[in-house]
């Protein structure tokens, strides 16, 4: 169907196209991802009929998908106001509330959706997500299981179940459910369709095993530790990976065949995702392979960056690397990312230089920093992970939200302090301040949803303690990394 021309100016309410037809058109556009077109159609319709609930609801979905979250909420609230408690509206508005961090309202609307439509597994699925984010893991698991009892092919519910189980440390069952992530309809496929089988851990040495560096760079850094274990079973390994991480993988296992484009893939017998290796390995918390460091910075680069940092930072100052935001396209970026301003408690630390390793759009916040501790924006000069590693080797500690830089510092065996959301990624488990994956990691957890201030205050206090002139007592406690449990309470 040809799109109708975008409306201009005020709309004639007597436009001779039946409203149902217009609505169907808008819905088609939304489904086809033509969001701008859907948006202007719905605008057109809502000018004529500002209280039409279905249009309001669809306008909310479109606005949400366009990233206009506040507007999405308003449209959906109006849809509910004029269209009573339609379960579909409630099911969707709860996701908007969740995105905005308004978890009470999210829980309330999701529960009402389930009550009104008890046989809709999608309502239960959404409720499971909200329980996860509220760190009500048993409730989350129960909801996901009820959804799966209605439809056991619901990939999203399996994945939600996996995340909750993994976060609880129930990795055996978690890994199996985690496999469903590849079947989530909205997720981009990991690789082009293939008739080759998924590797099940069986050894072979005549043919190539294809590994896929899936998910984010942090995942690649974390799970590439399994490559030597894989190589013991299948010595010929090709890895599909982004060019940025290729040098890291070569370091870990020099004989890999690395490629960046699928048309360059060599013939292979079976494939596996890097993030699927813990399952094949049978990883449990007590047997997590962690021979750290498994990455090393280039000594020449370390020396060059030492020279540069010696020039940029005042003599005798401790250097604290900081990263406040992850890749904005990450699903949970709103939850995991902070702002430079939230690092406020670190701005007045005496004789400390903050060294920004931040890349990407959030890096421009360095231009608005007016704190007392000098902030050196080396992020502007970082070309690749080789630079980042060499810089980290010249820092006293790295303080970062949950990004690849944390993995990098940790894989180098450098002190990496990670700032985690109340409901963190499953790999950081619950409550503990250390990690079975990386011995030099120290975890600082949010105690209240999306509240960084107390986290940063704890980090500042810990830095003060770490940099305090050594006393006899401190000297005795120097050897093992401080392991204290600042137990985070779930926000209930």
């Amino acid at each position, binding site marked *: 169907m040809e799109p109708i021309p975008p409306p201009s100016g005020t709309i004639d309410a007597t436009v001779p196209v039946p409203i149902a037809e217009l609505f169907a058109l808008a819905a088609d556009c939304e489904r086809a991802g033509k969001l701008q077109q859907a948006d202007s159609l719905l605008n057109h319709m809502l000018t004529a009929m500002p209280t039409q609930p279905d249009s309001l609801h669809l306008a909310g979905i479109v606005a949400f998908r366009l990233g206009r979250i506040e507007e999405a909420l308003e449209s959906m609230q109006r849809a509910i106001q004029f269209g009573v408690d339609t379960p579909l509206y409630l099911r969707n508005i709860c996701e908007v509330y969740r995105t905005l961090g308004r978890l009470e309202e999210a829980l309330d609307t999701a529960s009402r959706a389930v009550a009104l439509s008890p046989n809709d597994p999608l309502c239960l699925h959404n409720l499971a997500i909200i329980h996860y984010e509220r760190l009500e893991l048993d409730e989350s698991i129960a909801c996901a299981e009820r959804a799966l009892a209605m439809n056991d092919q619901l990939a999203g519910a399996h994945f939600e179940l996996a995340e909750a189980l993994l976060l609880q440390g129930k990795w055996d069952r978690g890994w199996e459910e985690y496999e469903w992530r590849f079947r989530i309809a909205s997720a981009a496929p990991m690789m082009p369709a293939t008739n080759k089988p998924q590797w099940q851990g069986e050894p072979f040495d005549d043919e190539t095993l294809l590994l896929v560096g899936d998910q984010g760079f942090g995942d690649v850094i974390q799970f590439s530790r399994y490559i030597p274990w894989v190589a013991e079973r299948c010595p010929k390994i090709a890895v599909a990976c982004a060019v940025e991480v290729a040098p890291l993988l070569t370091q870990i296992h020099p004989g890999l065949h690395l490629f960046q484009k699928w048309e360059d893939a060599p013939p292979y017998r079976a494939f596996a995702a890097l993030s699927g290796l813990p399952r094949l390995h049978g990883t449990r918390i007590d047997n997590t392979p962690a021979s750290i460091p498994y990455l090393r910075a280039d000594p020449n680069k370390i020396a060059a960056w030492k020279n540069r940092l010696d*020039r940029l930072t*005042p003599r005798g100052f401790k250097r604290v690397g900081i990263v406040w935001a992850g890749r904005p396209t990450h699903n949970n970026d709103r939850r995991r990312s902070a702002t430079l301003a939230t690092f406020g408690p670190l701005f007045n630390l005496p004789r400390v230089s903050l060294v920004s390793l931040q890349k990407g759009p959030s890096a421009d916040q360095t231009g608005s920093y007016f704190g007392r501790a000098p902030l050196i924006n*080396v992020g*502007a*000069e970082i070309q690749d992970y080789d630079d980042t590693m060499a810089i980290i080797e010249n820092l006293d500690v790295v303080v970062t939200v949950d990004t690849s830089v944390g993995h990098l510092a940790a894989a180098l065996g450098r002190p990496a302090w990670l700032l985690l959301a109340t409901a963190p990624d499953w790999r950081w488990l619950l409550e503990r301040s250390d990690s079975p994956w990386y011995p030099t990691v120290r975890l600082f957890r949010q105690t209240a949803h999306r509240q960084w201030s107390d986290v940063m205050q704890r980090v500042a206090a810990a830095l003060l303690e770490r940099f305090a002139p050594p006393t006899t007592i401190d000297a005795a406690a120097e050897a093992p990394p401080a392991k204290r449990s600042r137990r985070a309470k779930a926000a209930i």
Partner: protein
Amino acid sequence: MNSLATQLCPCGSGLRTVRCCGLNPAALPPADSTRHLVPLIERAMQAHRQGANDTAERLCLDVLEMAPDRPGALSVLYQIRRAQGNMPAAEALLRRVVGFDPNNFPATNELALMLMGKGNLAEAEIHARNAVRIAPQNAQAHNLMGMIMTEAQRPRIGEYHYRQVLELTGQRDPILLANLAWNLKNQGRMEEARALYEESYAAAPDIKQTLLGWARMEEADRQFAAAAEKLDKMDALWPNDPGATMSRAVLLGREKKNDEALAVLDAVAAQNPEGKLGPNELLDKGRMLDQMGRYDEAFADFTEGKRLARELSGNQYLDEHAANLIDRLRSFFISGRLATLPRAGVRTDVAQPIFVLGFPRSGTTLVEQTLTAHPAIAAGDELPLINDITGLMPRMLNSPMGYPEALAELWMGDQRNGLDNLRDWYLQKVEQMGILSEGKVWFTDKMPLNETHLGLIALLFPQSPLIHVVRHPLDIMVSAISNHFTHGFFCSNALETAAQHYLRVMELVQHYRTEMALRYMPIRYEEMVDDQEATVRAMLDFVGEPFDPRCLAFHENRRYARTASYAQVTEKLYDRSRFRYRHYREHLEPAIAILRPAIERLGYTVD
């Protein structure tokens, strides 16, 4: 009549444009072919000597119509026009004399003086240097260099040339001694200056400029009674001299006798034919009213002073020029390009600069005075050198482009160490200025608005601390409207343009800080006032020098700063200047509208 008039050159020389400012040198007849005009020129000279100016003028115009490059006729016509007070024509003619006859010492001397009088020091310097080249043993040539370098805030070079004059003449001319004294005062060498003033005055007690300079020197040295005594002498010899009267008002103001100071200013106004004060006097008066809490009257005087200054000088904010430069800097200094550019190496054999950055009137003088009370840090004051480098760069890097695009030459095989050369040029100039002394490992460069060139500075001095003095933008605006400064493309000639330039520069700084790793530290003026010791300790930590308690007593640092802030800095840290914009809240509305984003980003509020 009209068609003839339109042909005449707008400079007012009386020549046709094509024979004057629109002259095409390539179309000139060969010098030899106009030799038959020489008798006419001689007649013109003779007529001029005899006071027959009409005859002389007509002869000159006739000659120049046929031979516009004849220096003799140009010189005579120049003298006639100057005597008539027609300065644009006089300047155009004198420039042509020097252009056609580069070895003409009297004309070169005259042109340098004329340009210095106009405040065009950069061009005056070029001609003064030529004068020395033409006549290296001529005392007046060195005198020119002495005066111009002193005015251009390079007093050490000026001192050298003044002392050359003393040597060449073998005499101690009282005016020269007074000029040298003024030079030494600008170097903060008050005792030596005082001795010279005494000697000059003893030899010639009736020279106005000597007494006035002496009075100002004593005032700057906080010897208020001595200053008053000199002014009393002036009053006796030259009653109601405007210069003396203004110095009296300023002196009374510094002694906090504001009522008396105002009375003096009112008397000055009454003397003027129009009953009004000039732009500088208006600002002086406004500042006194401000001290007395009469804010609305003060602001009215500031506004009128700025308006008059614009009217008299013709200087407006060079909006397009500023916008163009800042746009080009913003597009040139991006992280991708910077990754491919070299940095200058760091010299360890010579003291290194600390850059004290900030908008004029933001507290850079205070920070500099504090830092330079430290035994390891010399005071460089406002060094024009970074700005000079931006002008020299195309030549030094052999580039067909201007700054900053000329930095692209650093990609050439023969310019890889181009930055080292620029750095060495800067350090050599600093050495020539005599800023450095034994035991100093740093020197300050507090040229305001050097932050415009933050990118270049970081390429030249990658290790140098960059201390950016930050202050409530509206307080800066109050200060900018109540003082004259020419930095920043004349932005301070109106409140709105000062605000606009401030915003532009702050956004440029934000850009540099996003695109580059800089050794940068912001210092809030307000924190300096609130907790001086903590701020000083933080700054010295940042520089890498141990704390020295002398920095806290910087007002005892006897060094005299040349800039407008000196009177404040020699007082103890004063709280009165913090958030004084509140007294002018309504008057500042046009600036608030412009500055709102900067105010918020800096973490200030408007209340």
